[in-house]
């Protein structure tokens, strides 16, 4: 039987948000070429978001220090289009940097969202009743033959 090759790498609690149930969120670092430092913030895990990262206005304003957006693109949500500025970024989760693109909606009010482009590369366990989030990394399996 195949054995689990995952080891716990980090854990966090769910976060409180306004007028909605608690959300699973991860601490992340965001880096853009041209910056000397990274941005530390929390991002909600959103498996309904196709892309890598949706940026809050605060994060977007800090990224703009390195210059304007790399391009513009609209995100589609049902019948609605959300016009966005797009930034080429690197996002650090646990101990690894992931190259991705960050979408900043033209209108403020959004929270940072981690989408499937990134979450599909992570091993996450959500324990809703305990409001806990666990992240695991793969470990080298030792041969069981002796």
């Amino acid at each position, binding site marked *: 039987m195949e054995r689990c090759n995952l080891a716990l790498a980090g854990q966090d609690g769910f976060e409180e948000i306004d007028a909605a149930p608690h959300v699973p969120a991860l601490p992340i670092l965001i*880096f853009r070429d041209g910056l000397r430092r990274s941005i530390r913030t929390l991002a909600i895990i959103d498996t309904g978001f196709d892309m890598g990262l949706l940026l809050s206005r605060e994060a977007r304003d800090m990224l703009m220090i390195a210059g304007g957006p790399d391009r*513009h693109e609209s995100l589609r949500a049902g019948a609605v289009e959300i016009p966005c500025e797009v930034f080429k970024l690197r996002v650090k989760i646990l101990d690894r940097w*992931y190259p991705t693109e960050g979408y900043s909606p033209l209108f403020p009010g959004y*929270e940072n969202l981690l989408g499937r482009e990134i979450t599909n590369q992570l091993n996450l366990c959500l324990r809703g009743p305990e409001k806990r989030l666990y992240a695991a990394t793969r470990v080298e399996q030792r041969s069981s033959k002796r």
Partner: protein
Amino acid sequence: METAVVKRLISALSGGPKPINQLAKETGIGWKTCEKYLESLKLLGQVEEITTRRERVFSVRVGRGGWFFPHMSRIRANRTEWVEETPTVQAAASDGEV
């Protein structure tokens, strides 16, 4: 949606409520395109519509946006701040491309 068109529309509306005809004229956008963008912006909670007997008037919506996006709720304890760490050349090279 073209971001430049959205910016022109919001800029035109910053002067106060306006009917579609006037907005189309001021921004140089076709009436139909103008209406389509305003409908989308209405769903996003950025503009609101006042329908009179003669015309549809739009204005910038004051306060927070859209019923369409409940995840616009913000994390209460979130702080967005600078930290000294940056990706190293080695780390960037060893991490896979998304």
